[in-house]
């Protein structure tokens, strides 16, 4: 096993066909990505921590108790277009509507070359539209994009954790961040941001990363305001 000097990207692949899942999984592994495959848009949303069109941590949701489940950082979603129930397009829309996930790049795959379909997907925010069969070269094209997103996440994390040495900027957020709750098994409630709409370049942090990354990560949605509207867990300190 090669010790990856290059960062590991985690890709969520969605396809209802077992054959296609196997195929895209291998392709992604060959492109040095970590892969999770699911067979439907619903399962994809579940995996992302979204559910039935509203976010699990939606303040309007009936239950406000923390959801105890493991979430991992996803650097890319690649989905088939034609799927029963929820199409790839539907999934794309749901992802882009979610404040937690809208910054995850989404790529659509299809075995049919339908220009109207392609432009519809791109207009809705898909980064790319690949015709099947997808090739390794296609996936390698996505790497700069995933890298950019990953770096942005890291950068934002640095800004928000001034206790880290390399951070030169100190932003409004000064509270210690919890790095790894996997032992505790609790997920921090995300903070509903009440700040003004973010500019394109400043993206909401979806997840935090540890510099010494392991496979278990938690997902946190944070605003850049000190104005906290949700209670936070007290007494949990950094465990880096």
């Amino acid at each position: 096993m090669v010790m990856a000097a290059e960062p590991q990207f985690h890709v969520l692949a969605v396809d209802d066909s077992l054959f296609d899942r196997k195929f895209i999984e291998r392709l992604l592994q060959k492109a040095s990505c970590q892969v999770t495959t699911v067979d439907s848009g619903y399962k994809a949303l579940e995996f992302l921590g979204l559910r039935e069109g509203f976010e699990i941590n939606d303040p309007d949701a009936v239950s406000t108790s923390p959801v105890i489940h493991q979430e991992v950082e996803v650097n890319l979603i690649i989905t088939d277009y034609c799927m029963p129930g929820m199409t790839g397009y539907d999934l794309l829309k749901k992802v882009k509507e979610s404040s937690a996930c809208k910054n995850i790049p989404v790529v659509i795959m299809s075995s049919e070359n339908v220009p109207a379909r392609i432009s519809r997907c791109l207009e809705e925010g898909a980064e790319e539209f690949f015709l099947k069969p997808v090739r390794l070269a296609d996936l390698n094209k996505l790497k700069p994009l995933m890298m950019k997103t990953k770096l942005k996440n890291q950068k934002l994390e640095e800004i928000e954790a001034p206790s880290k040495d390399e951070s030169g900027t100190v932003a409004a957020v000064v509270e210690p961040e919890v790095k790894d709750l996997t032992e505790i098994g609790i997920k921090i409630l995300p903070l509903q941001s009440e700040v003004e709409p973010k500019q394109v370049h400043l993206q909401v942090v979806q997840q935090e990363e540890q510099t010494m990354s392991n496979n278990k990560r938690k997902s946190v949605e944070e605003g850049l305001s000190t104005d906290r509207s949700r209670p936070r867990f007290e007494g949990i300190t950094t465990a880096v």
Partner: protein
Amino acid sequence: MDAHVAQLQMQYRNYILSLYQQGFLDDQFTELKSLQDDGSPDFVAEVLSLFFDDCVKLVGNMARALDQTGTVDFSQVGANVHQLKGSSSSVGAKRVKGLCINFKELCEAKNYEGCVRCLQQVDIEYKTLKAKLQDMFNLEKQIVQAGGIVPQVDIN
């Protein structure tokens, strides 16, 4: 180098080339092979196995859909053809894919006779391919057992 191994390798090379030349395989198959490595040494075999399982299932579905003593649901047939076209395209099964393209048009035209004939051809074609690929895998095994390495065949 062992003469026996060399001979087997030559045989293998020629066999693969003939599969391409006769249109059984296209460069997507080459792509598939390139995805196999030490980490996933059986990838091609696994994927092909899934493909042939798909063939059995889909051909069965289509046969049933076309075996109606009444109205045939061509969209149902078409949906299965679509799937088969997708997977055959992904493994590089050139002839099967080609047949599926025709088949699709026949479904759209609701050409019953044409569909039935085409389905028969698809059935023969995937089974033929399966046998050919089995021979290929057997050759690979022989080479390895003789102490040799399976050569990369350059299709150009």
